[in-house]
């Protein structure tokens, strides 16, 4: 039996900076996880992934990652995805300083 679909965000790395980016509601890319579109429909999510794979000019390695709804937008589920929203833990580098990002 197919596993039940869990909500996802579509994420990738930016071609030039390599930074984590997320598909937002307007069909563009945001560097902020909370601005990501939360896909609750499997077919829609997979269609968005296929579309992203066809736009290789700006992004690298798109994939669907588990996420859940939060008060200010989607939140990551897996700790790896949580790290991608912040940056490394040993230095104050990456999104945690560049985004003025609220830690999730």
């Amino acid at each position, binding site marked *: 039996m197919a596993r039940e679909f869990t909500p996802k965000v579509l994420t990738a*790395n930016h*071609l*030039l*900076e*390599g*930074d*984590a980016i997320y598909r937002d509601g307007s069909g563009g890319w945001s560097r902020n996880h909370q601005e990501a579109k939360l896909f609750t429909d499997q077919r829609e999510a997979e269609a968005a992934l296929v579309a992203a794979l066809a736009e*290789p*000019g700006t992004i*690298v*390695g798109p994939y669907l990652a588990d996420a859940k709804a939060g008060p200010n937008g989607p939140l990551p*589920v*897996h*700790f*790896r995805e949580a*790290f*991608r929203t912040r*940056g*490394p*833990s*040993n*230095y104050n*580098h*990456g*999104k945690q300083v560049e985004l003025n990002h609220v830690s999730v």
Partner: protein
Amino acid sequence: MYQYNEFDEAFVRDRVETFRGQVARRIDGSLTEDEFKPLRLMNGLYLQLHAYMLRVAVPYGTLNPVQMRKLADIADTYDKGYGHFTTRQNIQFNWPKLQDVPDILSDLADVEMHAIQTSGNCIRNVTADHFAGAAADEIEDPRPTAELLRQWSTDHPEFAYLPRKFKIAITGAPNDRAVTKAHDIGLRMQRDAQGNPGYEVIIGGGLGRTPMIGKVLRAFLPKADLLPYLEAILHVYNLHGRRDNKYKARIKILVHETGLEAIREQVEAQFLLQRAAFEPVAEQVIANIEAAFAPPAYVSRPIGGDDASDAGFRSWMDTNIADHKRDDYAIVSISLKPIGGTPGDASSEQMRVMADLAERYGHSELRVSHEQNIILPHVHRADLALIYAALKAVGLATANIGLLSDMIACPGMDYCALATARSIPIAQEISTHFDALKIERDVGPLKIKISGCINACGHHHVGHIGILGLNRAGVENYQITLGGDGTETAAVGERAGPGFAADDLIPAIERLIEAYLELREAPEETFLDAYRRLGQAPFKAALYPDQVTRNAA
């Protein structure tokens, strides 16, 4: 050190310009990522969790001050002001932007450096004893051989597409500081009965998901036979190494599945063919390489008295100084393991200070060790106090070489796309915790090595205490292995039992250390010696006290 000739220079410049074109075509959309990825990896450019990462080769860990300063400049101009020295004696920059990488490679070419063959299924940077050319226990400096191997293996057409990556390590000393038994090929210099130098050839070692200690393929190989013999090994591997399964593609699996005897027969048969067809390396070429590694112009002058009044200096002298082959000289290990810091990281300012010290006091030589420290291999003992003071001023005088806080840690999930858990925060917590307890000196020699995934860049299998970070049901979890050893008495550590959550790991390590202090026969008995004498049981009991109680009940 070795200086590029015209051929080396032209080759590296040409590769930079080729890659510049490839990057431009990727950015303008002419190349897809699938097309570009193998090209960038051939130039050491990875895409990690938060950014690109550029891995720059430091051949056999040898650097001169001009190169070290250039690394500092690159860190400031294109990165975030620091670099990360790795367990393969390389340096990694964690934040380059794709469009800047050709310029970085061009800057590196200015100082005879590059990032070629730091990735991909080719022969990688040949690593060597970081005390090479200086160590008191050395038969011969292994670096001329390492340089010969670098020239032979760079862009070698037959070995550009091996079943998997291929790593060679070499040591010229009986005390193995290059972990030769955990490499695809390990070379240990020996002398035959007539006193001629040659190599013990070890094959099929490796860490990763299937750790194996290398086996002796040839007990003594004359020096002149080295290249045809290695070609024979690589030929057999290239032909028979598995290409159907990435996880079984290393030569260690081939040796394991085929058997050492059968591999030896194949290699020796192929060797006869290779040797017959091999055009010997011109004596002049060998002589030129050897001349490039001639000992520095040592200076004889009084050593003077140590400044015994400074406890910090005394403590640093105890741990960070090793015997040089000359009595009036010493080998200085600069610890890149400050308490609470990131193992292997150096700021651009620190790199410049190390370059200045090497130039002023160290015959312009620096080494990167696989244990992620920097070495000044040739320092007159009269200058040690000055060097200590200069290092201390920039936070580089941590007196912990060979002790608990001198840990290896891979970048882990703070940077690496392959990692399953973080390594760096674990290293930071261990060093901070045990520093507060002030027991590091009492514990004595101890190697803790931390990897953030089974690929084992942090060498956890050969740590006296190895720590492996995994993802267990969506939480970081850390497995402990005990009794590993990366030296001439190499051994793969044994898994102690179930893993620990990050919060439980430090107390577990503390119980382990306390148990060792209780169990040892004398302060001279190291953790590893005690483990070998007693076996795993008492250490396991310390790690899992609840389990013992339960079993006893």
